[in-house]
């Protein structure tokens, strides 16, 4: 059974169409990433899935319960870590977790026990009795994440869990998330970061301007833009614009020129003779080649080809 079914959901804020006819289904026990730039509608979708917002039209079922008809049932089986680390600055780490556990109506003893084991799991046991405001950005995120899975929910939503963290903090958080995946939690996360989606997710939906524009595994998405990327560099005294003009029609999408390293790259049809043709044309224009090769595309290039803009690096 699917853990989450989103059927033709739209949401509008004034003139802004935040979501347009979004449909998705997320299987139980899988990790699903919503990937998209700022303002694409990712957070709006998460808020609808977690009952914080009602959709204007369409329907959503989470764990079999309709989010509009049965929000209380939905809230019993989900956990949410929102875009802000929602922890109380004036409570200690332990108190923060115990409060959330108690609001899920765990007994005092169960709450204490869960808080203790989660603090250990998150490597926060040493800071358990310090107030939230003494926590670093990475510690706040981890504590917030801990609060979201305090009752081991069936379905966990993480809205940009690592935004604003340094690489070390990000790596630490990924490790915690991988632990949850091993426990079989269904996980829906949003991210602007391609590496994050590729590292953690079984399936990825690319979302832009409120629409899902591509959906699949990382490998499937890469296949979608034709399979291969052709990339060549010319010597530093060469004319990059002339090289671009001579070859741009051979790429299936928009080619990209990087003047800093004198490189042109873009997607090509893998069955085509593009490589041979690029060499022939550059030779005809008397442009020398420093390096040329075909390779598999990165997810970033998929993103660029589909949305027309760079993802966050």
């Amino acid at each position, binding site marked *: 059974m699917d853990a989450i079914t989103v059927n033709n959901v739209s949401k509008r*804020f004034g003139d802004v169409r935040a979501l347009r006819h979004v449909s998705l289904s997320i299987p139980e026990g899988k990790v699903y990433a919503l990937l998209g730039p700022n303002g694409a509608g990712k957070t709006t979708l998460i808020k609808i899935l977690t009952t914080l917002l009602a959709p204007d039209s369409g329907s959503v079922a989470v764990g079999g319960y309709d989010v509009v008809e049965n929000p209380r049932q939905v809230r019993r089986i989900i956990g949410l870590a*929102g875009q802000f680390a*929602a922890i*109380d600055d004036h409570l200690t780490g332990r108190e923060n977790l115990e*409060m959330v556990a108690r609001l899920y109506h765990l007994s005092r003893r169960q709450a204490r026990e869960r808080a203790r084991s989660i603090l250990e799991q998150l490597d926060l046991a040493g800071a358990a009795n310090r107030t939230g405001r003494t926590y670093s950005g990475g510690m706040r995120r981890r504590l917030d994440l801990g609060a979201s899975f305090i009752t081991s929910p069936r379905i966990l939503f993480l809205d940009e869990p690592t935004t604003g963290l340094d690489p070390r903090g990000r790596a630490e958080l990924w490790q915690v998330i991988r632990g949850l995946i091993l426990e079989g939690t269904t996980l829906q996360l949003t991210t602007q970061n391609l590496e994050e989606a590729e590292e953690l997710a079984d399936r990825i939906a690319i979302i832009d301007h409120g629409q899902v524009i591509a959906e699949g595994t990382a490998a499937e998405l890469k296949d979608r833009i034709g399979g291969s990327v052709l990339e060549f560099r010319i010597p530093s005294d060469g004319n990059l614009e002339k090289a671009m003009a001579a070859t741009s029609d051979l790429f299936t999408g928009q080619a990209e020129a990087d003047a800093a390293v004198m490189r042109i790259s873009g997607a090509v049809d893998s069955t085509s003779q593009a490589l041979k043709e690029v060499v022939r044309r550059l030779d005809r224009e008397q442009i020398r080649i420093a390096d040329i090769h075909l390779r598999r595309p990165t997810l970033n290039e998929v993103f660029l080809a589909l949305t027309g803009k760079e993802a966050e690096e």
Partner: protein
Amino acid sequence: MTKGSYMSTRMHARVKNNIFDVLMLTRRNLKRYIRIPQLLVFSTVQPVMFLLLFNYVFGGAISISTGTGSYIEFLLPGILMQVALFGSTATSVGLADDLSKGMVDRFRSLPIARSSVLAGRTSADLIRNLFVVLLMVGVGTLLGFRFQGGFFHGVAALVLVLLFGYSFSWISATIGLTVRDPETVQVASFIWIFPLVFASGAFVPVQTMPSWLQDFAAHQPVTVTVDALRSLMLYGTTDYIGQALLWIAGILIVFILLAVRAYKRIT
């Protein structure tokens, strides 16, 4: 078990859970005062300062027109009102703060009643007001105030002022949930609280004001309630109590509905 009694058992469990949630959230909100004692110290120093300044700076000039023996008798009920109203602005700041930090989203994703976050916040501010009101009564007693209306009327007066502050917490909650930015909320609170407190019979007799202002001042809820307080505290009578209670009930009904609606509409 019949279906009816099953339903009532479920209702019973739900009410019990809701009360429990409100208590948990109240405790959470009060812990802030324990963790930052400075907050409580400074927020109580301020009204004590008002009480001392008003009594010694204006007392001489005002006591002539109040008709009571000394100004402190006239002043303390007014100061209690001021304390309760200023205290109620904490509700909006606290809620706006929780909103901006994502706490409200966390609470809204939990299986608890939507009203319990608001009830937890206003209850915490009620308890804080109780503390400050008792402190002011203590300081007022040192300055010579006596409950001439007797003990029970005095207790009734304190309950009345706390109820009044509690009703204003719901106005404040509505503002906090509408304005949302904590700093703007703080500034906005004083725009409506100041005229209500000062253009009233809290510190001076309304008769000394220009006639156009008297029309407003004499009928607004702060004046009505402070008159009820004086009647209880000084004379042991119950004048104006009915009117004051009507205001409180009206404010509670209207603003609980508005606040809950604003809370549900958070995006």
